[in-house]
């Protein structure tokens, strides 16, 4: 069964630095086996960055699971595959083509494949997986599921992964269903033994135990953001299912069921409502927040489109709301399962009339958690919608990151809320009165006091005491105060982070969110090519003075983003009145996550005097 094609091209050789890709059919149960494989490498102390590449479909279409192994800790996607586990005949040709010269192809050799369908510059490893399964198992479902575990066993032998590490993971996974442990380990061994006896173990690609993991954790951004909402004190979630945000609310449900049950009564200290559409979701969030609860919704671009009218109301009537926007490729239905950073403009300036909204840009699950919790403080403090801008790349892929941290001395910042005692003490209450000169007025919760502090909330124009008026001066004063409030927001949102080059440079790059891993890798690669670039990672809108100074202190700035039109660049020009010629548009928007090489190519396109590497 073993076929090794002798080639002219040298087989790839690498330790702890390569890309493995699994080509599967969705619905075949491969996902958990592939995750097991990824986690086993992590347990050996070697950083991995797994990615799901999946269609908008339930069963039968191709899916891929890609794992980048990188001892150096590069977690961005990387072009080309070094080892292809080709389990899907539908995508055979495409999968074969994606292998780098000298790469390795692992496939199910039960059914003979004509020689013409292979490439000559790769190493081909056939294993009769179906035949082995059919011999060992009677049940069709078992054959399918254990086939996945068998190939994990074979890969362990081929890549020199310690089998005990995988055994431990299986024991942890099936702790609650103990009788599944033995058959899984048996299947694992079956794969390993076959590979050891029949295949060229180990390959040129191997895993060697490392120390690069430390206390890092691995989770997806949607789960982390949901946990942030739990820690941030969210009690009301209203949502409408939409890829790629659905798993965020599902994770919130899961965590609430564990962490938010009243121990005395068994009742829920939360309410989650699946609304009839995104309009109702944001309406419920606004109603709940108006009434003093911390409330959020999770959605994607099409949902943000539908919420526009309500977002204008929340801005103008000054109601806190938290929105998690897990971005996907638009416009319209776009590519629901492909990543982009394309909702900046529609979120920053959501709704008709003059509006500006606060946006947060987490780079990884750690920040999804931190910003997810912080968003509720910001919403209450600023009495306005706060958008946490994830994307499919961060939201739905497991990512290695710093452990989540929480300070138990921290208290929720409920913002400027006048209490019964304040009103009794005779404090002047004007719902839209700028009492503290920071643009932020005071509010009261409904039901606070029998004769003081009630007011009428409306989307129409009003005076400082919330009384209806169409007087131009009152309207303008209110709109100007909202601008003051937005300037106050600048001082409260997460500040940008600068990563300077080793030597002083007049070149800078601005980037945000899920581009960060690729950007950092690109900076390192460019340094080795004698091109120094300073980096500034934008973590929020409004932009603060650090962003302005960074732009002032560089001659040329590359604005790296994952959309067609350079939306961040547009906002920088619009908000900071930057000379557009200084800001170079560097966009990647084909729905795949951006890579370091792609960033370098985009930057070099603006540097014509440099020859391509």
């Amino acid at each position, binding site marked *: 069964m073993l076929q090794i094609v002798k080639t002219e091209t040298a087989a790839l050789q690498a330790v702890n630095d390569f890309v493995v890709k699994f080509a599967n059919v969705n619905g075949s149960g491969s996902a958990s086996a592939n995750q097991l494989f990824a986690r086993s490498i992590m*347990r050996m102390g070697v950083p991995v960055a797994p990615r799901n590449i999946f269609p908008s479909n339930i069963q039968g279409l191709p899916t891929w699971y890609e794992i980048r192994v990188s001892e150096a800790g590069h977690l961005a996607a990387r072009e080309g595959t070094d080892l292809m586990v080709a389990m899907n005949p539908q995508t055979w040709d495409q999968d074969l083509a994606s292998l780098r010269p000298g790469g390795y192809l692992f496939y199910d050799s039960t059914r003979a494949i004509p020689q013409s369908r292979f490439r000559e510059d790769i190493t081909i490893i056939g294993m009769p997986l179906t035949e082995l399964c059919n011999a060992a198992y009677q049940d069709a479902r078992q054959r399918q599921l254990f086939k996945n575990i068998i190939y994990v066993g074979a890969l362990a032998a081929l890549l020199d992964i310690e089998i005990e590490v995988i055994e431990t993971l299986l024991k942890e996974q099936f702790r609650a269903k103990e009788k599944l442990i033995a058959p899984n380990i048996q299947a694992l061994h079956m794969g390993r033994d076959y590979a050891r006896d029949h295949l060229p173990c180990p390959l040129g690609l191997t895993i060697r135990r490392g120390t690069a*993991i430390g*206390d890092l*954790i*691995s*989770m997806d951004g949607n789960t982390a953001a949901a946990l942030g909402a*739990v*820690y941030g*004190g969210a*009690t*009301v979630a209203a949502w409408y299912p939409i890829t790629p945000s659905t798993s965020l609310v599902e994770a919130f449900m899961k965590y609430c069921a564990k962490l938010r049950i009243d121990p005395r*009564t068994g*009742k*829920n*200290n*939360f*309410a989650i*409502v699946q*609304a*009839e*559409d995104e*309009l*109702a*979701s*944001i*309406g*419920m*969030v*606004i*109603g*709940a*927040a*108006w*009434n*003093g*609860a911390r*409330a959020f919704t999770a959605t994607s671009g099409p949902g943000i489109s539908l919420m526009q009218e*309500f977002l204008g*109301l929340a801005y103008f009537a000054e109601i806190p709301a938290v929105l998690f926007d897990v971005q996907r490729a638009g416009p319209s239905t776009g590519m629901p399962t492909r990543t982009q950073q394309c909702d900046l403009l529609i979120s920053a300036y959501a709704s008709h009339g003059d509006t500006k909204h606060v946006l947060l840009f987490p780079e990884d699950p750690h920040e999804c958690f931190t910003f997810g919790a912080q968003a509720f403080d910001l919403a209450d403090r600023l009495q306005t919608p706060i958008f946490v801008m994830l994307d499919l790349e961060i939201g739905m892929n497991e990512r290695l990151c710093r*452990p*989540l941290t*929480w*300070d*138990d001395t921290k*208290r*929720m910042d409920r913002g400027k809320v006048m209490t019964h005692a304040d009103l009794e003490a005779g404090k002047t209450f004007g719902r839209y009165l700028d009492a503290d000169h920071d643009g932020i007025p005071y509010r009261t919760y*409904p*039901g606070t*006091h*029998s*004769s003081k502090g*009630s*007011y*009428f*909330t*409306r*989307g129409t124009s009003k005076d400082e005491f919330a*009384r*209806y008026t*169409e007087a131009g001066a009152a309207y303008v004063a209110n709109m100007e105060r909202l601008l003051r409030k937005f300037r106050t927001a600048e001082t409260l949102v997460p500040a940008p982070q600068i990563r300077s080059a080793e030597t002083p440079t007049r070149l800078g790059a601005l980037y945000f969110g899920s581009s960060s891993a690729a950007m950092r890798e690109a900076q390192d690669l460019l340094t080795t090519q004698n091109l120094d670039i300073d980096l500034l990672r934008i973590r929020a809108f409004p932009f603060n003075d650090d962003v302005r100074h960074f732009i002032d202190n560089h001659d040329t700035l590359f604005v790296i983003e994952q959309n067609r039109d350079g939306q961040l660049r547009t906002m920088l020009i619009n908000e900071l009145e930057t000379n557009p010629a200084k800001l170079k548009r560097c966009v990647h928007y084909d729905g795949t996550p951006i890579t370091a090489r792609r960033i370098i190519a985009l930057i070099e396109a603006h540097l014509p005097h440099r020859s391509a590497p």
Partner: protein
Amino acid sequence: MTFLPKPKLHHPDLAENALGYTRRDYEGAISTLCAGCGHDSISAAIVRACFELDLPPHRIAKLSGIGCSSKTPTYFLGNSHGFNSVHGRMPSVLTGANLANRDLVYLGVSGDGDSASIGLGQFAHAMRRGVNMTYIVMNNGVYGLTKGQFSATSDKGAKSKSGAINRDEAIDLVGLALQLGASFVARSFSGDKAQLVPLIKAALSHQGPAFIDCISPCITFNNHQGSTKSFDYVRAHNESINFLDLIPAREEITVAFEPGTVETVRQHDGSLLKLRKLDDTDYNPRDRLAAMSFLAKHRDAGEIVTGLLYIDPEETDLHDQLGTTATPLNSLTEAELCPGAAVLAKLNAALR
């Protein structure tokens, strides 16, 4: 048009309710609707119902959408928090508000354009979700603020002020509310305060989605010959099936009712609904299917059936279904909400 405050002079002999409030404490700003507008009568009925029920004004939250009807919350309950939201979306805002604090009384006010056209979806889903609220539609069959277009509750064949004939079927919100699971369904007429006030009182006491479709003629755009929502037309075609009296839970019930003519329904909060039958039929307001068939039959005969049409006193609300804690969610603190660093350390450990 700006805000018109009402003079705060009280007549010294003004009657007080059990909480010591007078009717004035339940009033709002002066209405800016057209003189004679049916909506102002409904506002007055709301004021009276809340006063008579001894509800603390600040414990009521009033929410509305957009339109003439949705402006009315400015004109009643001036000591209550109010929310004039966006067109057709009051139900979702009210649902969210209710989730945040289950201890307030929620009054949603809407119109036929707001609830039967742009907001039909939200109307339907709020009913089926069982939100504990009183939902009043001030139904005049016409768009007033935009000057006289038909709304979705205009009857087929009705004539507009400019002479156009409505060719579309009318949407019957009462029929929809019944079908969608509202546990209190009534129809009334803004010109019949004797009927309307007890209905609003009963709805406010009801623990679940209570819907009142209140025909409320538009004096300016829909009160002419050929309209089926004019004062004259509604008076002539009003088929009132019962007369309701509400006895609050705290009042001892001493009256003995003559069997056959009066039906009583005990509500969840302990209040007693006393229903006096006004027609010869054997109408049973606890039979949802019969109510639907009765209404359809009378509608075909051109009659507008009013009264308490359906009641399920044992209805549960959205909070029951969600299993929410009894404490209002908006008053939970870090202690109940934030699991803390130790739990996070465990979660981290499971992610390695």
